[in-house]
């Protein structure tokens, strides 16, 4: 991985919509080069996807609930936690799965349309898995910051228009 590639990744992580021509100028390479580099980063699964962070609280018409579930599991010989983690992350309602140190083993983030839906998932899908010992469900009440992005009304430029 060279310096330019790291720079490209940083720029795209912050703003995936920057046009290729602009990106090329920003890191000072040709458009062809930048396109080749981005393509190769995609092929290597370094760039996995380009996503948007949406503040659904502000978008009328789509309500949902999210929960974070602390899961205790018994690891299996040979495969440790990986096998049960995979069983869990394959469910489409699961948005994230992390292996944690501390009081529990897996942190599972799920999203559903209603609280009932989430409750159903936990009691019927998650808790019934063989290796799952216990679950503690925390419903998410409000998002303040997610993936480094602060969820608040757009900050206006507070600088005066022209200054020394």
């Amino acid at each position: 991985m060279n310096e330019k590639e790291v720079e490209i990744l940083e720029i795209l992580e912050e703003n995936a919509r920057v046009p290729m021509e602009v990106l090329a100028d920003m890191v000072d390479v040709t458009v062809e080069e930048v396109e080749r580099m981005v393509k190769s980063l995609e092929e290597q699964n370094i760039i996995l996807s380009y996503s948007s962070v949406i503040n659904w609280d502000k978008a009328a018409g789509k309500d949902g609930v999210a929960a974070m579930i602390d899961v205790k599991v018994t690891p299996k010989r040979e495969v440790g936690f990986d096998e049960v983690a995979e069983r869990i992350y394959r469910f489409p309602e699961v948005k994230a799965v992390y292996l944690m140190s501390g009081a529990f083993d897996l942190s599972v983030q799920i999203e559903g349309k209603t609280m009932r839906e989430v409750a159903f998932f936990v009691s019927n899908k998650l808790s019934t898995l063989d290796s799952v010992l216990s679950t503690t469900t925390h419903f998410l009440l409000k998002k303040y910051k997610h993936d480094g992005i602060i969820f608040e009304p757009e900050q206006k430029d507070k600088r005066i228009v022209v200054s020394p």
Partner: protein
Amino acid sequence: MRQVKQKYVSKTASQLKPSGIRKFFDLASQMDNVISLGVGEPDFVTPWNVCEAGYASLESGYTAYTANAGLMELREEISSYLSEQFSLSYSAQSEIVLTVGASQAIDLAFRAIIDPGDEVIIVEPGFVAYAPAVTLAGGVPVSLETSAEDEFKVTRDRLKKVITKRTKAILFCFPSNPTGATMSEEELKDITDLIEKHDLLVLSDEIYAELTYDQTHYSISRIEGMRERTILISGFSKAFAMTGWRLGYVTGPEEIIGAILKIHQYTMMCAPTIAQHGALEALRSGRADLDRMKRSYRQRRNYLVKAFNQMGLSCHMPGGAFYAFPSIQSTGMTSDEFAEKLLQEERVAVVPGHVFGAGGEGYIRCSYATSIESLQEAVKRIEQFVERHAEKA
């Protein structure tokens, strides 16, 4: 009535020209939806850790004066910062004074060294406050014009021409506002013997030192024989995105700093206490934020400068600060005309080059301390503008 009141104003004050930047501010601030490339300050807000330190200092009751020279702890931190970043050695005890922005440091430096009639060479195009600050201190500003052919650097020949028997000092600012020019060790060494020969003082405004992109910043005071004649001015406004905190500093040989401290003590007492606590945190933990901002400026610089050259506004690659200084001579307009029409027709604010003094006419200053999205939009609009006016010509 106005006339009567006017008579009370001192000659010095009434003869000061209003800043050309002010005029542009008045124009631009009356309009909506202006994309501003006219801003001489970071678009980042002050790093959060620094703001936290400001809150904490209030909570802890640090609301009184500090020592005249500033908090000892902060002076020590600046001393080691200057040594680590720029290989400079200044004593926290006797060679550093915290000021109300680099602006006050500039004022103090001139007041401390100028006797009536002394000439001070000002490198132009340059920061708008230099020449008036010389005048206010009773000196005579003499402009040293630089040009795009020399990438707005100071050359021996040009310097030689403006030195007279009355020359007391020369003021540098590299990286430069408004040109973004930088000077390397070799280029500086090329002029220092002239400075020594004529026994000049150097005021080196290095407020953009951290924002140097293609090489590392080299301070003139590192050159042999220069430390004892250099007053170095810097501050937290630009690199740490702290313009509103009003905190700068001045360092130099003890005798001069002693004189500066006397004036500071009688005119300002001390720099703002809360800001000093913020600055301490900036030096201790601000490196990552600084690097992040710097990386972003460099990317935007690359984009903007290329765009100017592509649309036929020839622009040298600025080595530092956050300004591009493209030529608008190909349009046949003066910088005032260009800037005013651009603002009126396309709602993009830039600063006409002539406000920065000799050599600035024919150029505009465009700050790239603004988001890449705004820069893209600004480029689109300027391009349209240039094309439209080229057709008419």
